[in-house]
């Protein structure tokens, strides 16, 4: 393979450029795929796919690197296990691989439904379960802004009541970022 593309390089590219790369790699199924799905396909074709099963065998430093590639903000205080959980939250169990970054809600919805520490986070019609217990609303908003299309100025509601961005989420909480009301008619 002449070139190997990194996640960071491809995030800077537009969809047409990514499709051209996919075409050059003789991939199939990319023509109607979304940007981050095409990135996944390319990464996978380059042998960059990481399975959840082998995450535990990696060093904490390597797991952190994978998490950052997946668009996850890693805190210095996070344990290796916590980081793995966050990576698994954006994984696709059917294919048993880790998405470099899930560009849509479908990729992460309900994927960690058996994890008791997950919290339902929503914005407008989009929602998903995420392992964000112990995180602040601000951190969750930053982490999920592209996945759930969260406006930076969106108010946050936990269990039906407005909260500040410094609120720390607990098990059992439900977090909503308020999407603006439709203006037209």
């Amino acid at each position, binding site marked *: 393979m002449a070139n190997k593309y990194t996640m960071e390089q491809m995030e800077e590219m537009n969809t047409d450029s990514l499709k051209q790369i996919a075409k050059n790699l003789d991939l199939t199924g990319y023509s109607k795929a979304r940007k981050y799905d095409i990135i996944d396909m390319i990464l996978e074709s380059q042998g960059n796919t990481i399975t959840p099963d082998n995450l535990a065998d990696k060093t904490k430093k390597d797991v952190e690197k994978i998490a950052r590639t997946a668009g996850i903000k890693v805190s210095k205080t996070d344990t290796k296990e916590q980081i793995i959980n966050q990576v698994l939250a954006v994984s696709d169990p059917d294919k048993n691989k880790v998405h470099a970054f899930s560009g849509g809600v479908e990729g992460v919805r309900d994927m960690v439904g058996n994890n008791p520490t997950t919290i339902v986070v929503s914005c*407008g*019609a989009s*929602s998903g379960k995420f392992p964000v217990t112990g995180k602040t609303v601000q951190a969750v908003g930053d982490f999920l802004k592209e996945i759930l299309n969260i406006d930076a100025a969106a108010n946050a509601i936990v269990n*039906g009541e407005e909260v500040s961005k410094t609120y720390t989420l607990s098990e059992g909480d439900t977090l909503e970022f308020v999407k603006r009301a439709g*203006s037209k008619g």
Partner: protein
Amino acid sequence: MDIKIIGLGGIGSVLSEKIGRFLNFSTRENNHIMLIDGDSYEVKNFERQEFFQLGSKAEVKRSELSLKFDRIQFSHYNKYVNESNIKELILEKDIIFVCVDNHKTRKLISDFCSKLNDIILISGGNELTDGNVQIYIRKEGKDLTPKITDYHPEIQDPKDKSPEDMSCEELSKSQPQLFFTNFTVAAIMCWVFFKIINGVIPTESDVYFDINTMAVSAKTRKVKAA
């Protein structure tokens, strides 16, 4: 049952027909629907608004629906809702459908309704491929659901203008809309209406949908203290 439908564009032109049809063939008696809009149907509206002739939206719709549904008493008001006329249009125990295209009018109606004792307000709006329906219910002087301004600063402090405040140039410029999206808002407003007239007070106060992700989500939020 006294129903006021405010705004007869992409959402209201569809909603008025569906609510009229439902009530006309129900066993409920003494149903009155007032159709309110200061705008006119023009040729350019055919793309996504339902009407059978050009002219005042309120008047055209009243004529059309009166012919279709003879068990309903229809009336019309062919001016925009404003601070001067709102107290004549919105009365205690009304069911108000807000299908307007600006937050300034939504706020005006919401603020007025929040001073009444008994009112049901169902407000819909959309962008190109997504939208939402808000539900405000007030019974015996108490809010049962949040006001439509409570969690929405864009409505509480609207930056847009009501049609009466717009110049002809501003009025002629309109953002692209999709009929399917208008229709979805109208359909969800019908869901809410159906629940309410069957005696169910919704705990949800905001229902969002997104055509692109084919998702619908209803939100339950607490009433804010006065």
